[in-house]
């Protein structure tokens, strides 16, 4: 297992380094002079002082190799630079925003995983009855209805029509847990819908794979109850594919949260990114993309670790 994990770790590290480099050099992709572009495009007439100030702030006045090493060094210290607009350190702002995004994503993952597995087990154990195709049909809808469709419809039904939940916004958890939860319900459900469908489908087909196998019959015949058979034997085997998908799901959640945060005005990492894109605050854009990428790479790595823990063939292989 150690070589396996070491290899994964090296790959993850290399991937992060590539991402950091791409993010660094992306500023040179800007058409024309980056400082000009940042100061409002070619039609604006920035004074030479303004241009110099921006160049200095972005480090464009120094040789590119020096800048590159500085940037990697700063990253290693957790310094993500300063916003061009507010001049605040990006790392601090981003930490607040990331925490709020996690407050949205973690409940969504919980909903998707628990409900998805329960629904998947339900459908698999009722194979051949009308309930199985019904459940599968519902998941197909879950796949095909994008978040930017589900979100506004949920807002219309629960906020504008029934008036039971707020249409968007955010309350700090410590300011009012009730209001925090009320704001959380719609975005979390919107975000959970598609991953729930995937988890349900995966669980169902993985179970159908395992249920007819000999070890299940053995477990049953030694007198283990049906719940014990499922938990102790079937689910452990069925989970390898589900775990991979779960890893992908977390990635999908972060991706979905871009649009969900925009719909529900959730002041997380993604709205931070979208605002920065709107005002061309490149240090912020670079930082958010970098941190988001680091999260994906870590999640992928953790999925591999989880694989090794759950599958002895990989652990000892």
């Amino acid at each position, binding site marked *: 297992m150690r070589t396996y994990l070491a290899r994964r770790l090296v790959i993850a590290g290399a*991937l992060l380094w*590539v991402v950091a480099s791409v*993010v660094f050099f*992306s500023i040179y*992709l*800007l*058409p024309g002079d980056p400082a000009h572009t940042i100061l409002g495009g070619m039609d604006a007439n920035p004074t030479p002082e303004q241009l110099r100030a921006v160049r200095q702030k972005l480090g464009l006045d120094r040789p590119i190799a020096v800048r590159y090493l500085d940037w990697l060094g700063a990253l290693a210290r957790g310094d993500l630079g300063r916003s061009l607009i507010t001049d605040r350190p990006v790392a601090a702002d981003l930490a607040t925003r990331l925490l709020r995004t996690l407050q949205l994503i973690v409940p969504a993952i919980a909903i998707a995983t628990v409900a998805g597995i329960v629904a998947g087990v339900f459908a698999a154990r009722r194979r051949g009855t009308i309930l199985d195709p019904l459940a599968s049909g519902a998941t*197909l*809808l879950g*796949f*095909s*209805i*994008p*978040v*930017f*469709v589900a979100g*506004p*419809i949920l*807002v*219309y039904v629960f906020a*504008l029509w029934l008036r039971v939940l707020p249409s968007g916004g955010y309350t700090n958890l410590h300011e009012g847990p009730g209001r925090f939860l009320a704001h959380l319900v719609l975005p979390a459900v919107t975000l959970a819908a598609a991953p729930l469908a*995937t988890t349900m*489908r*995966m669980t*169902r*087909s*993985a179970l*159908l*794979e395992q249920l*007819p196998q000999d070890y299940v019959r053995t477990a049953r015949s030694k007198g283990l109850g049906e719940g014990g058979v499922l938990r102790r034997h079937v689910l452990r085997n069925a989970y390898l*594919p589900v775990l991979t*998908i779960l890893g*992908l799901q977390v*990635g*999908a959640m*972060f*991706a979905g949260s*871009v*649009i969900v945060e*925009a*719909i529900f005005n959730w002041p997380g990492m993604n709205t931070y*990114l*979208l605002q920065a*894109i709107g005002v061309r605050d490149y240090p912020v*854009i670079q930082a958010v*993309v970098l941190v*988001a*990428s680091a999260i*994906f*790479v870590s999640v*992928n790595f953790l999925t591999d670790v989880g694989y090794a823990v759950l599958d002895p063939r990989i652990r000892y292989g």
Partner: protein
Amino acid sequence: MRSLTLGYATDNAAPITVRRRRWDARLLVPALVVVVVVVVALAAPLVSRYDPDEINPAVRVALPSRTHPLGTDEYGRDITSRLAYGARISMSVSLASVVIALTGGTLVGMSSGYFGGSLELVLMRLVDGLLSFPPILLALFVITFLGPSLVNVILVIGLLYTPRFARIAHGATLAVRETEYVMAAKAIGATHTRTLWRAVLPNIAAPLFVQTSLGLGQAILLEAGLSFLGLGAPPPAPSWGRMIEQSSRFMSLSPWPVLWPSAVVSTTVLALNLLGDAMRDALDPRLRGRA
């Protein structure tokens, strides 16, 4: 859907029989939906006589009527017309980007699978790396630096979906690389290009077709998502995603301007997903009845 790609052989799969399969309706119904969307996109000026961008304050958020079959939005623009012209954007973006991804991905995957060695190592590592990031984040990042335009959206989506095709082409090529017909092609002195083109490509085409159908749906979603965030084709282009975003601010007046484009996007994507599934089952009967 993903579960299918794992392709387990199982004892509860339906037995493979030679009798005529019953997938016709599963293939035809979604195909029909796709054809309707394409026809509407091509014949947009015939579908509605209104200019999709024509503002008419006299009929703001009108309900469906004889003059406006699906009603109007918050600016009094005809929704039928905007949907039809929006179909042009969706269809052209998804088709062009999938053609890019299919061509690029097939070239990358097929050559790395066929030649192997360090070429394979480098290319497939690159593919794995790109695949580990969610498309929308990469798309946002690239669009920020290239600027939002229809061409850039097409290029970005095409680039982002290339790895998916590459991985499929790679796997399929590995499976056929050692077959007799590829050996035979080499033995009679065919060049690498000819072997790839005449012996390998026709035999790896099936899974690529399936991915094409699924990829079209995903490209439509990504385009709509980008334009929902205001980073797709610039206004006033009547993209489906932007229609939903703009009208959703006026939902307290009427939900219909949101519901129509929502229904159209969802139906189109659902049809393409079903089409992909049906094609996969038709092309690979072992997988029938799974997931």
